[in-house]
């Protein structure tokens, strides 16, 4: 199994995500710089990390979404590779059109940095298979632009198709229908604002995020 983490100028969760991938896969992910135009041909899992890519210039994730490497990410997603975008990575995925909607400034205007309770809405996806539907988990969030927005028709479609993977169980940032994470149509791309990679080992104080990564590996093993 081959994994990769994309690195933009201003990414700051890339190494945390790399540690999470290595912890569950046993192999170091390839670290792919934003100017690279190619990913390993047999790539199975791509992480788009949190941070402040390109200093959040223009809009969060806007510049990163147009960087050369994202074309390669879109191609890999097309052929079924798993793509996990966390925080700024979620913003990059919406800006690049791999996921619908947009992430607006938090409704309260404040940067929110704390643990939040989430409900696992869809436990059938590759990303959430190790959780139970309706289960409450706690991940940290740390963002200024996490207020998910999409028109009503898009929101209805996401809900109807089971593509709301995670929902905030409390008010966090004003997100439409409390959406914290969504899947693409084919279920192999997940964007989420909370940080599962920050809660994978006992030293983190919580391990709620670990099963997300374990489920992914399990899915890849059974798919191979």
């Amino acid at each position, binding site marked *: 199994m081959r994994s990769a983490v994309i690195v933009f100028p201003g990414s700051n969760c890339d190494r945390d995500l790399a540690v999470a991938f290595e912890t569950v896969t046993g192999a170091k992910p390839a670290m792919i710089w934003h100017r690279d135009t190619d990913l390993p041909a047999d790539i199975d899992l791509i992480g788009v990390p949190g941070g402040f890519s390109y200093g959040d210039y*223009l809009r969060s994730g806007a510049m990163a979404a*147009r960087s050369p490497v994202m074309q390669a990410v879109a191609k890999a997603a097309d052929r079924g590779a798993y793509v996990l975008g966390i925080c700024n990575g979620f913003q990059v995925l919406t800006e690049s059109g791999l996921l619908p909607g*947009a992430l607006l*400034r938090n409704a*309260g205007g404040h940067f929110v940095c704390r643990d939040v309770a989430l409900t696992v809405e869809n436990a059938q996806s590759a990303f959430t298979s190790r959780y139970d539907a309706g289960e409450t988990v706690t991940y940290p969030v740390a963002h200024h632009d996490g207020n998910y*927005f999409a028109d009503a028709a898009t929101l209805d479609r996401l809900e109807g198709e089971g593509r709301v993977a995670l929902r905030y169980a409390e008010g966090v940032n004003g997100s439409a229908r409390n959406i914290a994470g969504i899947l693409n149509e084919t279920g192999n791309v997940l964007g989420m604002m909370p940080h599962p990679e920050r809660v994978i080992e006992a030293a983190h104080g919580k391990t709620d995020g670990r099963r997300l990564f374990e489920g992914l590996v399990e899915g890849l093993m059974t798919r191979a």
Partner: protein
Amino acid sequence: MKARIFVTLKGGVLDPQGKAIHHALEGLGFGGVNDVRAGKLIELDLADGTSDEDIDAMCRKLLANTVIENYRIEKVA
């Protein structure tokens, strides 16, 4: 040739920045401000003969996120 691109949030899209500006104006004692919406102005210095289609494509592909924003192009001689 120069063009000014005005990027504004669509109606119904929450604008916390506009709200904060509104509160600050009220704090300064300015009454009668019903609402404030903040946007962006992007000035482009373009080669003469740049087509309208190209300028529009720049807006659609990068300068504005049309999920949440509108844009208006103003060409300056």
